[in-house]
């Protein structure tokens, strides 16, 4: 027996030794490895939302215009564009002599085809582009989009999600939504090479790219199913760029280390509480206000996001600084006032000192469960007992969105690419308003503001919007989503860096260089 154990031990050691000396048939040129959370579900980035493929699509495809990492609109296939006086016609002038990755020439007709298909085939951006009336391609390098009414959010939406221009010679009605069965052909800085499920997606640089040629030869997305393992793989040097925000417990380690760089950036995306105002007890604004006074969102943020966290101060995202009105700030925490508000409504504390028992519904996502835990703790201090109902997304969607069977829910999500995005969350017909809330004055303000291009005039309407949101307190903003994507110190030109930020968008690695 002892000999057997010894034998196994020796064999293992020999193999281990052999492993560490295995010779590599290495490739010439630089390879950049970026972490990814899952396998792409669709190679047509416009057919349906697929967050797994999004970072890859950012490198394979181009749009007419795109958003950089500061949420500003910058040129892409279109080198410039102009909006007509009345705000309903936008003319895009495209770069010349662009080719698709398969060598076919790109023309304005591909752009027209894509935008028409998004509408016809119910693409992921169909709701975002609903003010688009028609698309024309008068010549090979010009695209003209006509809107049914002036829409200040339109350019932002066109530059954002699921509006990548796809090749007309590849797609038709039958294969538009064909998952991963048609290989992606784009005009972007990197070309698709291969996808091994559960392992990686490999891209190579496109030497015919119309913009600056990428500095690395190969771009590999390493698929990691577990966030905690992914960060260890990053520390171990298997991944050069983490490919997402690190787990909160690791932030301090990364910020304080010379081996890594991190650039926290506030995105127009925020975590907030939404109340079901159609039912008791939250049909009473006093109770909603009591909750707002009971909560301290700075404390919640500090405890759930750590030192890079950013607590919400206004009812609109700080990414649109020009609309923020300091007269209508989120109220500061005041437990006495919270209790007074509760008593005003006629509630009495029971033998345990509780005025009210309620519940919060949430799905597992990011730091949601941490936020709910701190909210529960803070509410308990003013005599509100909170039960946390945590489920996975599909079950949450059925309970909260479909059946409106909830009292409070925790929400997140993008509130861009334009400040007008708040409309879908609070207006009567808004897609993401399932609070049972309807305020005609607010609806009108939002509609008017959405058609105005001039910032100062537009901002005055959003001041009023903030006033109503403060008075009605249907949502309680907690924290901003702070995007950060740690990279190793030897990486230069990542999308957050000085060099790249004006030129590249989210997860676009054209300017990345490995300096070691």
């Amino acid at each position, binding site marked *: *027996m002892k000999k*057997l154990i010894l034998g196994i031990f020796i064999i293992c050691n020999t*193999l*281990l030794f052999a*492993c*560490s000396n*295995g*010779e*590599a*048939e*290495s*490739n010439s040129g630089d*390879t950049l*490895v970026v972490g990814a959370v*899952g*396998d792409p*579900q*669709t190679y047509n980035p416009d057919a*349906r*939302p*697929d*967050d797994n493929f999004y970072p890859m699509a950012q490198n394979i495809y181009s749009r007419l215009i795109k958003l950089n990492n500061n949420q500003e609109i910058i040129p892409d296939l279109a080198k410039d564009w102009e909006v007509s006086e009345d705000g309903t016609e936008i003319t895009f002038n495209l770069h010349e002599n662009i080719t698709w990755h398969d060598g076919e020439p790109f023309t304005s007709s591909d752009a027209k085809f894509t935008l028409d298909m998004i509408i016809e085939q*119910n693409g*992921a951006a*169909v*709701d975002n582009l609903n003010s688009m009336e028609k698309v024309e391609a008068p010549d090979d390098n010009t695209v003209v989009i006509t809107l049914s009414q002036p829409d200040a959010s339109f350019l932002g939406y066109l530059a954002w999600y699921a509006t990548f221009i796809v090749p007309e010679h590849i797609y038709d009605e039958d294969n538009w939504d*064909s*998952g*991963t*069965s048609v290989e992606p052909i784009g005009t972007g800085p990197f070309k698709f090479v291969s996808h091994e*499920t*559960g*392992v*990686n997606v490999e891209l190579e640089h496109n030497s015919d790219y119309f913009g600056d040629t990428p500095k690395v030869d190969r771009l*590999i997305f390493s*698929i*990691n*199913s*577990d966030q*905690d*393992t*992914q960060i*260890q*793989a990053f*520390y*171990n040097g*298997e991944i050069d760029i983490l490919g997402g925000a690190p787990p909160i417990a690791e932030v301090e380690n990364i910020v304080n280390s010379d081996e890594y760089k991190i650039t926290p950036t506030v995105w127009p995306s925020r975590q907030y509480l939404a109340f079901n105002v159609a039912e008791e007890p939250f049909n009473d604004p006093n109770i909603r206000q009591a909750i707002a006074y009971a909560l301290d969102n700075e404390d919640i943020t500090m405890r759930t996001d750590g030192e890079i966290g950013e607590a919400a101060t206004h009812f609109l995202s700080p990414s649109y600084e020009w609309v923020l009105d300091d007269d209508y700030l989120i109220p500061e925490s005041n437990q006495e006032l919270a209790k007074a508000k509760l008593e005003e409504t006629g509630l009495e504390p029971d033998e345990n000192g509780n005025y009210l028992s309620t519940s919060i519904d949430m799905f597992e996502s990011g730091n949601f469960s941490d936020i709910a835990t701190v909210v529960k703790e803070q509410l308990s201090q003013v005599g509100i007992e909170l039960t946390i109902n945590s489920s*996975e*997304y*599909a*079950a949450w*969607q*059925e*309970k909260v*969105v479909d059946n409106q069977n909830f009292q409070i829910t925790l*929400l997140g*999500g993008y509130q861009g690419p334009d400040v007008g995005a708040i409309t879908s969350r609070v207006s009567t017909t808004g*897609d*993401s308003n*399932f609070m049972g809330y309807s305020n005609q004055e607010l609806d009108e303000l939002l509609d008017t503001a959405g058609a105005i291009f001039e910032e100062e005039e537009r901002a005055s309407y959003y001041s009023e919007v903030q006033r109503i949101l403060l008075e009605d307190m249907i949502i309680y903003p907690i924290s901003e989503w702070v995007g950060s994507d740690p990279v190793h110190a030897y990486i230069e030109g990542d999308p957050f860096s000085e060099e790249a930020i004006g030129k590249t968008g989210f997860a676009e690695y054209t300017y990345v260089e490995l300096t070691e």
Partner: protein
Amino acid sequence: MANYIQKRIITGILIIVVSIVLNFTLIKLSPGDPIRVLSGQDSPSPQMQAELTAKYGLDQSVFMQFINYVGNLAKGDLGVSILSNQPVLKMIMERIGPTLLLALTTAIIALIIGTALGIYCARYRGSRFDNIVSGSSYIFDSMPNFWLGMMLIMIFSSSLGWLPTSGMVDLRTNYTGFNYYLDVFKHWLLPATTIVLVTVPYYFRIARSSIIQVMSEDFITTLRATGMSESRIFNKYVFKNAILPTITVFGINLAYIVTGVAIVEIVFSWPGMGSFMLDAIHRRDYPLLMGIYLLLSISVAIMMIIVDVIYAYLDPRILYKER
């Protein structure tokens, strides 16, 4: 014996049929809708939802959906994934290889090590070695496998840098030939160690206790009285009797081979069925889920038949009872 096997196969088929019905019903009963998840919005427009629902045949009655499903199944068609539009069978085939590699090798290694340790400790019951192994078997048995996996990653990858943290191959370099196998082996070591460490205690305890039990039976005492040597008694009589429960546990373990190592696969980003299955559940990809569950039912049924047959072979009393 042929009669016995026949009966077992019929039972196996019944199990598969019942599980198809149950799987279908349970999946449909669970809250959530793949179309909603597919739309990527908290609340998609009713028109978009209706079109997608019709496209995937989800507008028909549940009964019709079931009839269609079974009809296609009879033709060997497992359907097309709602998520990726790829045939379910193809998707499963892509993922099952790595799972089998990890699960089969570790099951066999754990069986050998666990049983060997069990036998040794049973023969030298109460020795210091026995105490140490028995004690540590409880420690590893009670350890969650994902936690143990993470600890091994932190020690052997992040701190010592000896082994890669995750995945199955090195992505920067394309190894070929022998170096490729070495690379896979290097990636296999940590997840395999994790699974072996938490599975060995099962086999160890079963082997140890059944051997101790058999050795205390009357016929062994009789054999000892005849003056037969301890090793001969052990090899010829104890071992064969004591190994039966181990084979049962091994068979049950193998039946869950497709999904049994899912959590360890997720921790180590091993490109097997683990994260794939979890994704299918989250997105309510009905055809894919049904495919995975079907595979699971079939492997459970087949392993039960095999275990029963081996059992009957090793212990002929079973066949007599059946008659």
